[in-house]
C-alpha cells in the first residue's frame, strides 16, 4: 500500500469514527450539562466542599470561581514540583527550578502543557500523576465549563445567572473525562503504551552497549493528554516516543481522542440550543462547518507541503522525512500536526521544527487563529462563537440591523468584550515575540540562528503556542531560560484567563437580554453564507494581524 493510500485511509477512518460518535456523544454531553440530578459521588463531594450544587452563579461569581480554582491549581502544582524530592515515588528526581516550576504550573493549569523540561529527566512519578495528570483533567473541565456558561448566556433570557461552575467542573471530570480516559488508557495499554511505576532501568543492548529505558504511568497520562487537548507528554519526545506512541494505530487513536470533544461540543451546543428553543442543531453544525473548513484547508496545505518537500535530500526520501517517525509516515504526521495545533493540544508525533517552511507555517497559523479549528476542549467552542459574533457584527450592519446572534444584540458592551477577547492573544504573541527578538540573548536559544527566518519562526512559534495555550514547541528553541520560562508563563496565564474573563462577562451580558425573534430581516446564522463569513473573518483578522510576522518567518524561508 502506498503512503498516500494509507494516509487517505487513515484520514477517512478517523473522520468516519468522528461522524459516528458526533450525535450520541454530543447529545450525551448536552445531557451532562443540562441535567438536574446529581450522582451520589458528586453529591458527597459537594457536601464535603460546602457547595450548594443547585445555586446558579452570577457571571461574576462564576468567573471568580474559575479564577480562584485555577489560582489554587497553579499554587498546588508549583508546590508539588518544588517538594517532589521528599514525596513518594520521587525516583531520584531533584526539585524543579523556581522559574521552570512556575512555568510548568501555569502551563498545566492553563491547559497549555508547554514543557520546558524533559519529563523523564525532571518529574517524579507523583508529580506526573497527582500533579500534571490531575491538571490535565481539571483544566480541560474548566474550559468546557466556560464554554457551557457562554452557551447558557446565549440561551437564557433576562438573567445574569450562568449555572454553577463547581457543578460544571465536577460533571465534566466525573461524567465525561474520567470514563473515557479509563477506557482509553486500557486501549492504549493494549496498543503497546507502557503503564508502570518503575524508575529508569538500564539494559544491555544487542550491540553490546547499555541503554536506560524509562518507565512510568504513561498510558493513563497519555489518554487525558490527548482527550483534554493538553498535550504535555510523559516523555520529552511526546507521542513520537515509542512508549507513548508505539504504532500508527495508536497514533490514529490519539488523534481521535484529541478531536472528539472539541468536535462533538458543537453538537452539544446545537442540542442545547434546540432543547431550549434558542436555536437549532444546525447552528451547531454551522460552527462545526466553519471549524472544519479551516481544518481541512490547513490539513491539505500541510500535507501537500510536506509531500512536496524541498531540496534533493527530501526528494530522495520521497517527502520531507526529517523529524518524522517512519512508523507514522508523512500523512499521519501532517494529520497529527494539524489536529494538535488546531486544537490547542500541542502533543506531537513529529517535530514541527523540521517541517517544510510552508507546512510549519501552516501549523503555526493554526495556533495564531486562536485555536478554534476545532480548538481546545471548551475553549475552541467559545473562541469560535466569539469569532462568529464578530462576523455577525460586520455582516449584521450590512443588512441594516443592529447585529444580533440568536436574537441577542451585539451592542457596544458586547462588541467591546468581543474585541478584547480577539485582541488578547495576538497582543501577547506580538509583544512577547517582539521583546524576545529585541533581547540580545535570544539568538543563543535558537537552533537555527543562522537561517534567520527559521530562527525567528522558532521564537514566534513559542509565543504563539504559549499565548494560545497550545503547548507544542517548534522544538528548535531552547526555552528553559529565565526569560522564556517567565515570559511564556505570563503569555500562557494571560492567554488562558483574560479571554475567560471577557467571555464570561459577554455571557452575562447576553443572558440579560430578551432575544429578538428571528424574521426575514434576520441574518440566518445556520447557513453556508454564515459559515463562509465566519471563515473569512477568522482568516482575515488573523491574517492581517500576523502577515508581517509570517512574512519574515515561514514565507521568507519558503519563498527563498
Amino acid at each position, binding site marked *: 500500500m502506498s503512503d498516500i493510500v494509507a494516509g487517505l485511509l487513515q484520514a477517512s477512518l478517523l473522520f468516519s469514527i468522528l461522524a459516528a460518535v458526533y450525535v450520541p456523544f454530543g447529545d450525551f454531553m448536552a445531557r451532562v450539562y443540562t441535567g438536574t440530578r446529581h450522582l451520589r459521588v458528586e453529591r458527597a463531594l459537594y457536601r464535603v466542599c460546602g457547595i450548594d450544587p443547585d445555586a446558579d452563579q452570577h457571571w461574576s461569581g462564576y468567573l471568580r470561581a474559575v479564577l480562584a480554582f485555577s489560582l489554587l491549581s497553579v499554587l498546588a502544582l508549583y508546590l508539588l514540583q518544588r517538594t517532589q524530592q521528599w514525596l513518594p515515588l520521587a525516583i531520584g528526581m531533584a526539585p524543579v527550578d523556581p522559574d521552570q516550576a512556575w512555568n510548568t504550573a501555569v502551563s498545566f493549569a492553563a491547559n497549555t502543557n508547554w514543557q520546558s523540561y524533559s519529563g523523564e529527566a525532571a518529574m517524579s512519578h507523583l508529580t506526573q500523576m497527582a500533579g500534571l495528570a490531575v491538571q490535565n483533567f481539571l483544566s480541560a473541565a474548566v474550559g468546557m465549563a466556560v464554554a457551557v456558561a457562554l452557551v447558557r448566556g446565549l440561551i437564557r433570557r433576562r438573567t445574569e445567572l450562568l449555572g454553577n461552575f463547581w457543578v460544571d467542573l465536577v460533571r465534566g471530570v466525573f461524567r465525561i473525562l474520567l470514563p473515557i480516559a479509563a477506557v482509553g488508557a486500557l486501549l492504549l495499554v493494549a496498543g503497546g503504551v507502557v503503564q508502570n511505576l518503575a524508575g529508569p532501568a538500564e539494559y544491555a543492548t544487542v550491540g553490546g552497549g547499555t541503554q536506560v529505558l524509562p518507565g512510568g504511568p504513561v498510558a493513563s497520562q497519555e489518554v487525558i493528554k490527548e482527550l483534554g487537548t493538553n498535550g504535555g507528554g510523559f516523555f520529552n519526545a511526546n507521542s513520537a516516543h515509542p512508549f507513548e506512541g508505539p504504532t500508527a494505530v495508536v497514533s490514529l487513536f490519539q488523534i481521535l481522542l484529541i478531536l472528539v470533544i472539541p468536535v462533538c461540543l458543537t453538537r452539544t451546543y446545537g442540542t442545547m440550543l434546540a432543547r431550549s428553543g434558542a436555536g437549532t442543531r444546525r447552528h451547531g453544525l454551522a460552527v462545526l462547518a466553519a471549524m472544519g473548513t479551516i481544518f481541512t484547508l490547513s490539513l491539505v496545505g500541510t500535507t501537500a507541503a510536506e509531500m512536496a518537500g524541498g531540496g534533493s535530500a527530501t526528494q530522495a526520501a520521497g517527502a520531507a522525512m526529517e523529524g518524522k517517525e517512519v512508523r507514522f509516515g508523512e500523512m499521519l504526521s501532517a494529520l497529527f500536526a494539524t489536529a494538535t495545533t488546531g486544537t490547542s493540544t500541542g502533543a506531537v508525533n513529529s517535530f514541527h521544527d523540521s517541517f517544510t517552511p510552508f507546512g510549519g507555517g501552516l501549523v503555526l497559523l493554526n495556533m495564531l487563529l486562536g485555536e478554534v479549528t476545532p480548538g481546545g476542549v471548551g475553549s475552541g467552542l467559545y473562541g469560535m462563537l466569539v469569532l462568529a459574533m464578530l462576523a455577525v*457584527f*460586520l455582516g*449584521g*450592519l*450590512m*443588512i*441594516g*440591523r*443592529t447585529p444580533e446572534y440568536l*436574537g441577542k444584540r451585539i*451592542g*457596544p458592551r*458586547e*462588541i467591546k468584550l468581543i*474585541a*478584547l477577547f*480577539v*485582541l488578547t492573544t*495576538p*497582543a501577547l504573541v*506580538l*509583544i512577547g*515575540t*517582539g*521583546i524576545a*527578538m*529585541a533581547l540580545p540573548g535570544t*539568538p543563543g536559544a535558537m537552533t537555527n540562528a543562522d*537561517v*534567520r*527566518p527559521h*530562527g525567528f519562526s522558532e521564537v514566534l512559534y513559542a509565543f504563539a503556542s504559549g499565548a494560545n495555550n497550545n503547548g507544542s514547541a517548534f522544538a528548535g528553541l531552547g526555552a528553559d531560560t529565565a526569560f522564556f520560562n517567565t515570559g511564556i508563563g505570563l503569555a500562557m496565564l494571560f492567554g488562558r484567563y483574560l479571554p475567560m474573563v471577557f467571555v464570561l462577562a459577554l455571557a452575562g451580558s447576553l443572558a440579560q437580554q*430578551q*432575544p*429578538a*425573534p428571528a*424574521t*426575514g*430581516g*434576520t*441574518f*440566518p446564522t445556520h447557513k453556508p*453564507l454564515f459559515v463562509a*463569513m465566519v471563515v*473569512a473573518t477568522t482568516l*482575515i*483578522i488573523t*491574517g*492581517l*494581524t500576523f*502577515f*508581517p*510576522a509570517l*512574512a*519574515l518567518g515561514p*514565507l*521568507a524561508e*519558503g*519563498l*527563498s
Partner: protein
Amino acid sequence: MSTTVTPVRPEQGRADRARSAAPGRAFAPRGLVTKLPEALRKLDPRAMVRQPVMFTVLIGSVLTTAYCIAEPSVFAVVVTLWLWATVVFANLAEAIAEGRGKAQADALRSARAETTARALVDGAETVVPAARLGIGDLVVCEAGDVIPGDGDVVEGVASVDESAVTGESAPVIRESGGDRTAVTGGTRVLSDRIVVRITAEPGTTFLDRMIALVEGADRQKTPNEIALNALLASLTICFLLAVVSLQPFAAWAGGPQSVPILVALLVCLIPTTIGALLSAVGIAGMDRLVRRNVLAMSGRAVEAAGNITTLLLDKTGTVTLGDRQAHAVLPADGVAEAHLASAALLASRADGTPEGRSIVEFCAGPPALPGGPAAEDASAAAGEPVPFSAQTRMSGLDLPDRRVRKGAASAVRRWVAENGGADDPGVAAVVDRISAEGGTPLVVAEADGGTARVLGVVHLKDVVKAGLRERFAQLRAMGIRTVMITGDNPRTAAAIAEEAGLDDFLAEATPQDKLDLIRREQEGGRLVAMTGDGTNDAPALAQADVGVAMNTGTSAAKEAGNMVDLDSDPTKLIEIVEIGKQLLITRGALTTFSVANDVAKYFAIIPAMFAAIGGYEGLAALNIMGLASPQSAIVSAVVFNALVIVALIPLSLRGVRYRAMNAEAMLRRNLLVYGVGGLVTPFIGIKLIDLVVMFIPGMV
C-alpha cells in the same frame, strides 16, 4: 381612536426643498475646496481624539513630519504630505456633511428672528420680547403676527402659515380643543385671532431644537456608532501592535525600518476609510431624514428605525385613503342599474363631501356604467339641490318633475314612507349585509310625481391606498410585521387588513389597547414603530421604540414621540425604516471595504520593506502588482488610502443604495460588492497610482 388629519399637500413645496438639498448638488468637487478651511480647523487634537482611528493618523503625521525635518528626503516628504492629506480628507468629509445641515439651519434661524409677543396679563395685552415668555403665559396672535413660541391654542381658530418650519406653503387650521391645538413658534397667523398658552421655554422651542438637530450641534454617538468605534479602536490597537513589534523582527532580519515606512504601513492598515467617513455617514443619515421633512430627536431613534420589527399603522390615512369611496351600486328588484346610478349621481351633485364626490366619479365614470347618466347632466343643472344636513342625513335634488334623495338608510326610508312609498325588504337586507361587512350603505330613492320608491343602495367602503400591498410585501421580506390599528369592528378590520396585505390588525382599539400591544411586542423582543397625532396617542408614542408624531398633532404627541413628521404623512414610517437601515448598511459596507483593502496594501508594502535584504529575497514574489520600486510601492499605497476616502465621500453622504430584500440576499450582494470589491479594488488602484508615482524623481 384617534383620527389622523392629512392636510392637503402641494407637492411643489416639498419638491423645491428636496431639490435644494439634492446630494448631487451638495457634493460638488468645488465643495472640497470651499470646505478646506473648516477641514483644517478640525485638525484640533482635542476634537480629533474622539475619533481613535484618525487621531492615530494625526500622531503618525506629526511623527513623520518630525522625521522629515531631521532627515529630509523626497520619499519622506511625499509620504508625510499624503499622511496629512489623509487626515484633512477625513475632516473634509465631516465638514461637507455638516455643511448641508448648516445651510438648512440658517434658513430656519431667519424664521426665529427677534419677535415680540402680545402677552395677555389679567386680560390686558402688553408687548414683551418673545425671549421673556415663560411656560403658561398667554399670548394673543392675530392675522399677520408671528407666533412667539410653541404653545397650545386655548381660544379661537385661525389659519396658520407653517412654511417656515415645514416648507409647506398651504395654510393649516389651528383651533382650541381637539387634536389641532398645537402651534409652533416662528409660524405666522394668516387670519383670525387666537390665544396661545406657551408650552416651551425660549431656547427650547421646537424651532430651536430643529436648528440644533440639523446643525448636529449636540450630536451624540449612537449605540451602534459606539460599538463600531470600539471595534475600529481595537483593530487600530491590533495593527499598532503588529507594526510596533515588526521593528525588532525587522532588526533581526537585518533591515530595521525608518519611521515614515512604519507609519505608512500603520496608516494603510488601520481602518482609515470607515474611520474618516463614520461621522459623515451619521450626519448624512440625519440629513436624509430632514430632507424628507422628518425630524429625528436623536440619532439613536434613526438607528432604532433600522431595527424595527413591528410597524403599527393607523388604518385611516395610512392604510386607507381616509374617506369612504363608492365601491358598487346595488339596485333594488325591478330597477335598472343605470337608472339607480343616474339617480345616485343626481342626488350627489350637491354633495361636496369626499363621499359625494366619489359617487359622482363612480357613477359618471364611463367604464363603470356607460351611457345613461351623462345625459342627465343637463337636467341636473335645472334642479334645486337639497344639501346634506345633520338633521336630515340626506342630500338630493329637486327637479321639476322628480325628486331624488340619497343618504343614511333609516333617513331615506323614512322619507320614502312619508312620501307614500313602500319599504323594500330586499334593500333592507342589502343594507344590513353591507353594514356588517364594515361598509357604509347609502340608500337612493326617488319620488317620481307622487309616490316615492327605493331604487337601491350605493356601497361605500374604505379604499386601500394603491401600491400598499407591494409595499407591505417588501416589508415582510425585510422581516417587518405590519399591524393595522383601527376603531372598526374586527370583521371590517379583517377585510381591510386582508385587502391591504397586512400581517395583523388590532380592531376596536383604544389608546390603552395600543399601548398594551406595544408592550406585548416589546416583551417578545420586538422593536415597534408607530405614528400618532392625538394627545391620547402620547403614551403609546413614548413607549414605542420609534414614535413618529405628526406635525399637525398636539404638542403632547410631539413631545412624546422621538421623531416629528413635518408633512404629517403616516406612510412615511416605511421610508424612515429604510433610512435607518441604509445608515447601518453604509457603515457596515465601508467597514468591510476598509478591512478588505488591507490585503492589497500588505502585498505592496511588505515586499517593499524586506525583499532587498539578503536571505529574504523570496519576498519579492509577494510583489504581485509589479510595483516599480520599494519607495513608489509605499507611496502608492498611502496615496490610494487617502484618495479612497475622497472617492467614497459621495457614497457616505448618499448612503448605500437600499433595496427591500431579505437579509441573506442583501448580505450576499453587499459582501460581493464591498467585500470582494474591497479586496480587488486596491490591487488595481495601487498599481495605477504606482504608474504615475514612479515618475516622481527620487522614487525609483
